[in-house]
């Protein structure tokens, strides 16, 4: 991994995939490109974790897959968010925000202890 790029944090991949799929149904390659673009080319999505993650999310019923034809006439497997997936996204999102806020609170701590 080159400087300025970074592997995804453990456990955040599913959250980012859910978010990406909430915008529109996408194929695996599109998901990895989107995440890379949206993160300002910081996150490299490792294919070795992306496809197993998609498989996992399918088993849990968060996404459904179907074969469709792309804009340039290719067959590709598209993943679509289910309503269970939307609920999961909301849940994981609030989890993440809570965690991020807590980490920031610790990092920005400037006061003392009474």
């Amino acid at each position, binding site marked *: 991994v080159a400087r300025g790029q970074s592997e995804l944090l453990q456990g955040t991949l599913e959250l980012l995939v859910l978010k990406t799929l909430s915008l529109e149904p996408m194929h*695996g*390659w599109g998901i990895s490109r989107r995440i890379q673009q949206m993160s300002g080319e910081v996150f490299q999505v490792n294919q*070795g974790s992306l*496809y*197993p993650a998609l*498989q996992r999310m399918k*088993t849990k019923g968060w996404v459904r897959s179907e074969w469709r034809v792309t804009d340039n006439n290719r067959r590709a*497997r598209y993943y679509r968010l289910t309503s269970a997936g939307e609920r999961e996204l909301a849940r994981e999102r609030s989890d993440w925000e809570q965690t991020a806020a807590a980490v920031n609170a610790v990092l920005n701590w400037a006061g003392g202890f009474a």
Partner: protein
Amino acid sequence: MRWLLAARERLLMRVFRRREDSEMDEELRFHLEMETERNIRRGLSPRAARRQARLAFGGVERHREVLREGRQVHDAVWSIDPAIAMGATATLEQIAADLRWSQRVMAVVMVIFAAIAVVITIISLYALVAHAVARRQREFGIRLALGAGPDQILRGAMAQGMIWVAVGTGLGLVLAVGVAQLLTRLLYGVQPLDPGVFALVSFGLLGLALLASYIPARRVARVDPLRSLKSE
């Protein structure tokens, strides 16, 4: 009737799995192609683009394996209890291949060591015979002067070395039989005491030893007896 149902079930399962596999293949191939085209748009040559895409992907076959095995095991476990946490899964075949890998490497290392041992032995034997023959040059000169033929000299010069080699080969055979017993546990599909292999190795080594002592011995047998006599 029951077996018919079971057969139908198995057939369906096989067809279904085939389809899943080929779909997975197609999905991964699609990913590779898209990545390759993106690299071409970024200005790479088609070949470099394909290579880079493949590197970024890290071996299609591996991902396929991971996906397939993982899916089956995870599906099975989660159909019983979705709350169970599951780590990496591997088939027995994969584990066995990993285990065998170390043995294969050891075998290759052993072959290299053995080859080095043979080369060192042959070089040493050559040097030993050359030295012994050089020390007995005067004696050979006298023998030649007294009417011994070059063949007799040659045989005399080689005999000493070949006696060592014969004794060494005998000892080696005895040791090899002993060690082969210990190896039995590690061997698979190979006889520990294969007479063919033992014969081949012994005669091969004897042949090499003959050659290694023949070359210096021939040199002394060819020398003019007068020069031999004056050599010391």
